């Protein structure tokens, strides 16, 4: 048996997999980056690994999709298409794989059908394997993606999202699988998406066995996370029971919440008599040797909480959300509340809300609700817009049961039944006028955008434009290694920075002194390719503000808010200021909507009076302690 090469037709891939004696491995580099490094692993590091990864003989390299499209642009300042093109040059043989959220694509809310199709068409030119899921396992939410992938001649890998609990039976999952195959046909790989690393090895083995009994000709791809430290066990049982493809990561970068080290999988299964088809173990080892030294530069993005979390079986957070949840708890100052949130409130909310699958965007809804239930004064007292949409069925029907009426009443008020009747059910998201969108983007860029730029803009309009403007100002910065890109504390005088630009030209920057002038301006001197250069930085007001803000404790902020001087409690972006200066408001009125960690949270007034001054505006990024607005309580 040998490896499957890029450009093999989907039907041939499926046929080869059906006959396979042994198993294949997908290197889930993207999922590893997302779960254990907050999605920050740079293209520079993936490029270092590219040659040996291509030789290693993986079924596929999962390198795009999920939250990475967003983070590529927003935090890594790299064009997700450029990334695929550059990697393809270095990796001519390996299939590239994406993770697609169906109707929620590479974002967090349902997109119009024409946007979904256009997006898949553009990405399908570079992506061979399309792992597609829906957090409610609602098959209609994935159909547009299935169709476009098939039209592009690429391989569909539909998922059944997996979880544990009374409702999560083999029968249910086999029925779901059949429902999917009715749409996609049989030349697919079927993914068991175990995004939390849930269930015991035995449980996963039984599920694979049931699927293979019912659908013997459908190749099964087991995807898991190592949050509890036991995913190798689940993988072994999956393969023993007939799974054809499994996932793992490069050991030099494996952490606690992403995939397990794939070399451990290979070694374990080898002894049991299962061959890793096409795998060149030396190339696998070489990859880790090549990138191992880079890991230290990503330290700030690794989980602050060390160790595996077997309690994932209780809270069920997906690996991809573990890092960001812990980060939010740490930044929000409620790490001490985490045991309560994770082990008591989350499982409770999960049950109350229908026991669906805790994966994007459902995992964010569960998490935000649980956090707000614990930190707020009243459970479900401060519902997010996304929770409302979930309850209204905007994402699709609940798979097992609907939440209880009291939750609806809490969220929507006493006339909740009327609201559900009026607004409930899946919205038909109208097609967007793509010509109009293209024009709007051109207006902002001052040049005609490419189709790929338009796709990125359609996913995340503001962040895409910010990225395009960043690139105009700072160039193609993906050439910078993490040692520079993530440098903390500044460079030393005389430090030499050597890199190649995107055209391959060599450059040298030598850092000079950075004196501060009388007017407070900082002059950063450097020699750029041996030519002296200076950059001026005016004293930064923002820095001053936030350093003042940091002096406020959470209690102080809460006190101020109750007194009508409303400050932000968290690091978040203002989506909307819902009131105007001079407006009279009551306690509990919504005054703003903030967005953090993909979730929108309404801010409600804790004092009544008249809005006197509004300091923040939509689009502002606030830190804890930054002022939003003031309410004058004396004027009645």
């Amino acid at each position, binding site marked *: 048996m040998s490896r499957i090469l890029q450009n093999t037709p989907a039907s041939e891939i499926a046929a080869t997999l059906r006959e396979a004696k042994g198993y294949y491995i997908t290197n889930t580099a993207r999922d590893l980056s997302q779960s254990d490094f907050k999605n920050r692993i740079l293209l520079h590091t993936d490029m270092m690994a590219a040659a040996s990864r291509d030789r290693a003989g993986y079924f596929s390299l999962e390198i795009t999709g999920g939250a990475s499209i967003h983070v590529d642009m927003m935090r890594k300042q790299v064009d997700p298409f450029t990334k695929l093109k550059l990697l393809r040059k270095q990796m001519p043989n390996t299939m590239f794989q994406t993770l697609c959220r169906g109707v929620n694509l590479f974002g967090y809310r349902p997109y119009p059908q024409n946007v979904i199709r256009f997006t898949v068409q553009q990405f399908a030119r570079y992506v061979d394997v399309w792992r597609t899921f829906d957090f409610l396992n609602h098959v209609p939410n994935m159909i547009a993606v299935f169709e476009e992938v098939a039209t592009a001649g690429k391989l569909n890998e539909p998922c059944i999202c997996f979880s544990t609990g009374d409702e999560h039976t083999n029968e249910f999952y086999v029925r779901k699988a059949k429902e999917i195959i009715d749409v996609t046909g049989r030349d697919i790989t079927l993914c068991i998406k175990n995004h939390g690393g849930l269930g015991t090895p035995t449980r996963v083995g039984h599920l694979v066995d049931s699927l293979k009994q019912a659908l013997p000709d459908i190749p099964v791809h087991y995807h898991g996370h190592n949050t509890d430290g036991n995913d190798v066990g689940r993988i072994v049982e999956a393969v023993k029971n007939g799974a054809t493809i499994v996932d793992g990561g490069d050991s030099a970068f494996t952490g606690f919440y992403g995939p397990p080290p794939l070399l451990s999988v290979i070694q374990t299964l080898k002894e049991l008599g299962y061959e890793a088809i096409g795998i060149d173990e030396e190339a696998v080892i070489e990859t880790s040797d090549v990138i191992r030294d880079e890991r230290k530069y990503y330290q700030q993005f690794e989980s602050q909480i060390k160790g595996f979390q077997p309690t994932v079986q209780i809270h069920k957070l997906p690996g991809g959300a573990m890092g960001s949840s812990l980060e939010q708890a740490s930044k929000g100052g409620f790490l001490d509340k985490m045991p309560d949130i994770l082990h008591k409130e989350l499982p409770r909310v999960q049950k109350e809300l229908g026991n669906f699958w805790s994966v994007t965007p459902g995992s964010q809804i569960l998490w935000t609700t649980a956090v707000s239930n614990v930190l707020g004064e009243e459970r479900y007292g401060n519902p997010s817009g996304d929770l409302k949409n979930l309850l209204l069925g905007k994402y699709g029907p609940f798979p097992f049961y609907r939440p209880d009426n009291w939750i609806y009443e809490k969220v929507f008020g006493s006339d909740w039944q009327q609201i559900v009747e009026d607004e409930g059910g899946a919205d038909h998201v109208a097609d967007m006028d793509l010509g109009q969108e293209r024009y709007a983007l051109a207006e902002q860029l001052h040049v005609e955008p490419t189709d790929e730029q338009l796709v990125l803009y359609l996913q995340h309009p503001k962040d895409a434009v910010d990225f395009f403007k960043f690139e105009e100002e700072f160039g193609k910065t993906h050439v910078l290694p993490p040692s520079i890109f993530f440098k903390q504390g500044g460079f030393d005088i005389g430090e030499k920075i050597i890199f190649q630009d995107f055209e391959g030209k060599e450059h040298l920057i030598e850092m000079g002194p950075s004196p501060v002038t009388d007017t407070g301006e900082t002059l950063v001197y450097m020699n*750029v390719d041996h030519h002296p250069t200076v950059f001026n930085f005016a004293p930064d007001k923002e820095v001053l503000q936030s350093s003042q803000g940091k002096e406020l404790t959470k209690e102080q902020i809460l006190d101020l808010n109750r007194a009508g001087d409303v400050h932000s409690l968290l690091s978040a972006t203002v989506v909307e200021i819902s009131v105007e200066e001079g407006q009279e408001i009551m306690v509990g009125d919504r005054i703003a909507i903030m967005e953090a960690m993909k979730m929108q949270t309404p801010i409600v007034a804790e004092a009544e009076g008249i809005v006197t001054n509004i300091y923040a505006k939509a689009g502002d990024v606030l830190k804890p302690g930054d002022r939003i607005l003031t309410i004058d309580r004396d004027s009645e």
Partner: protein
Amino acid sequence: MKKKILVANRGEIAIRLIRAIQELGHEAVAVYEKPDEMSRHIRIANEAILIGNGPRCDYLNIEKIIRAAKVSGAHAIHPGYGFLAENPFFAKACEKEGIVFVGPSSQTIADLGNKVIARKIMAEAGIPMVPGTPNLSPGKDGIAEALAFAGEYGYPIMLKATSGGGGRGIRLIESDQQMKEQIPVARSEALAAFNDDSVYLEKVVLKPKHVEVQILADKAGKTLHLGTRDCSIQRRNQKLVEIAPSMIKNQPLLDEICATAVKAAKAANYFNAGTVEFLIDSDFNYYFMEINTRVQVEHTVTEMITGIDIVRNQINLAFGQDLSFDQSDVQLRGHAIEVRINAEDPKNDFMPEGGKKVEVYRSTGGFGVRLDGFVYQGYVIPEVYDSLLVKLTVHGFTWDETVGRLIRCLQNFHIRGPKTTIPFYLNIAKEKDFVSGDFDTSYIETHPHIFAYDCEDSEVGKLAKLIAEIHYRKENTFAV
């Protein structure tokens, strides 16, 4: 004998003149206005005199310049180009004060500065000129003369105010009807603007090439030419790119034009350096335009292909020396291109970028490359003067080699702070009509795509900016 020469100018030409003066073993006296106190020519000169707060008015003030020359004991004044360079009263004042004026006599400057007199001199010498009329007679007679001229040469025709200049007082006439209407209008406008209502007509030469001939003449009457330059790439009569020699593939024509230029200079009793300008139409008809009685901005291209230092010769000629070489010694070798790198935004109608600080100034070099500039890193471009920062002149054995050298130099020339014309010139240097040497004065307007460029800063410059950000903020705020 060692002399002191006052340089009555600023910017790159001041430095160019100072260099020639010092190479001759003389001493250079700079003058400057207050807004120019950070200018480099002050530091390069042997001495420098502040002549006032300006702006511009002191560089144009004959009395102050003469006084500065006397205070410093200067024997001569070199006016450069612009400012007082073609002001006959300035030359006259120098003559009166016994100061050597580096240029032709005040009489020659006055004669050639008056278009009607200049045309008369050239007509008498048999120099081909764009068909035109003398000043039109007043009233109906004038209109009848105009219609008769139109009947003979056809439209379009340019109606010009005799005292106009610099593009002012000119209007295009395309029919008899327009002619009748416009002459009275033009007269009253000219009267208001120039206090002189005389107007005359000139046939319009469509899509001409602008070709000029560099002349050197000594007081003994030896008049030599240094070959042709083509300055067709212009924007609203402002030259942007100049080459030498002309790329017209008709050597007998170019020889004839050079001989005509010498004849024209002799007819005007010309001495010192000058430039005879011609228009050449697509049928190889050529017409005399004017004689510039000063050193030209674009003199560098001629120097590159002849190896003759024009400014050095200007000074020696002004001190009464004869030309030490003959026409047969003037050999044209290869090609040269000059681009005027201006602090302007071509995309924004060449809006000047004055007031901005030159944050990065990284010039180029190597074989066949010449730079005539005056700015430096940290220099704040005064808003009150012209926007020329540096002239880049390249020289090559063949045209292709020269164009390749120009592209290479522009790619390696980095100025950050003000927007410059560098990326615009880079587009021209790569444009096929320019590369084939085929361009006329309509080039800029007929090639709008040369305005399409986006890279105004080098890639490494942009990356360096991010690295500076990461350094200053102590972390990459875009990444965390």
